């Protein structure tokens, strides 16, 4: 499925101000590994549709967001609860690893 691309304004509205948790993938067009995690992030977005906001931030297009959250390596996944970053996963190796990351914060 097509991923939700977020600019600063959309990020503020859908991640910081929204009432539900969010999974944000910081990526870049030149990052070849980012493409590899795409199908897995898409599958999770479909599974949690309506309950979890899943979106992408292109760090080249939104350097301010990348800097604010200290993104040094892409892909980095950030899980947000109540507009606050709860945890991060850097370059996950499998769908299972991303699932575990989400479920860990979903409950806790």
């Amino acid at each position, binding site marked *: 499925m097509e991923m939700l691309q977020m600019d600063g304004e959309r990020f503020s509205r859908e991640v910081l101000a929204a009432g539900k948790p969010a999974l944000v993938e910081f990526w*870049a067009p*030149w*990052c*070849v*590994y980012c*493409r*590899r*995690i*795409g*199908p*897995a992030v898409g*599958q999770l977005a479909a599974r949690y549709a309506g309950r979890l906001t899943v979106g992408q931030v292109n760090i080249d297009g939104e350097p301010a967001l990348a800097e604010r959250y200290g993104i*040094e*390596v*892409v892909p980095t996944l950030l899980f947000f609860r109540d507009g606050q970053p709860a945890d991060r996963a*850097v*370059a996950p*190796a*499998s*769908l*299972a*690893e991303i*699932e575990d990351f989400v479920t860990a914060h979903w409950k806790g």
Partner: protein
Amino acid sequence: MEPIHDVLIVGGGPAGYTAALYAARAGLDAALLEKLSAGGQMALTTKIENWPGFPDGIDGFDLGERMQRGAERAGAKTVLAEALSANLWGEIKTVETSAGRFRARTVIWATGAEPRRLGLPGETELTGRGVHYCAACDGMAYRGKTVAVVGGGNSAAADALQLSRVCKRVVLVHRRDTLRAEKAYHEQLMQAGNIEFCWNSVPTALLRVGGLRGLRLRDVQTGRERDLACDGVFISVGRAPATGLVREQLALDEAGSILAGESTKTNLPGVFAAGDVRAKALRQIVTAASDGAVAAHEAAAYLAGGG
């Protein structure tokens, strides 16, 4: 109870998806387990120039997706799941995964290979934050910085060249006094202008103050140690077959590759090994695809009672 597939393929690289294509076209019920996305190692290469039929090269991720689509069009199914354990003895084989249990009459093990590690203290902790195994993936984080590349083969040379376009300074650390890389690389490395060589040197420690600050190197001839300041280390010292889950069941060679000849048959009936995970002389996309076709053929013969 879970369905029993004719063929269960573990790994979605060129070996796995070729096996899936051939098995499905042979009329077999084929399921393929992939932990992340199609393509395997080649999905990290943006231009593949030795897959025949593409004179201008082809993007590895794109090629992986095409292989997946082809196999699925023939009737094979992909499940995005990570294999956690396997029981390959007996007539019905089972593989436990992150998405539940899978059962099949035949299994084609096509899990490929993964980067070899140096085994230094702190290496795991710093992975992705100073220590890297893929220049194409993580290189851009070191724009304008100094990095070390450890290794002397083709992939180390390619990594050094790729990083030299981004970084201020690249230091290639190699334990011998010449590179194993093909001659075509030597001239390019010399011409890059910002690549230096540290010959006869092996890393002995990752130096850190919070994050990575450098690499301690030992000269293998004099035994003398020195510290190289760098912002990142890219390790390119070969690949190890991904055979961790099957090492108690399948016969392996001393490097950990599955012992199976050109027939791809392992020591267990109904279990086949295809691609980089198999002990073989040449690990390439074409030879992986070839293994996949042979493995599917042998699996069909086994299921028909002739294998």
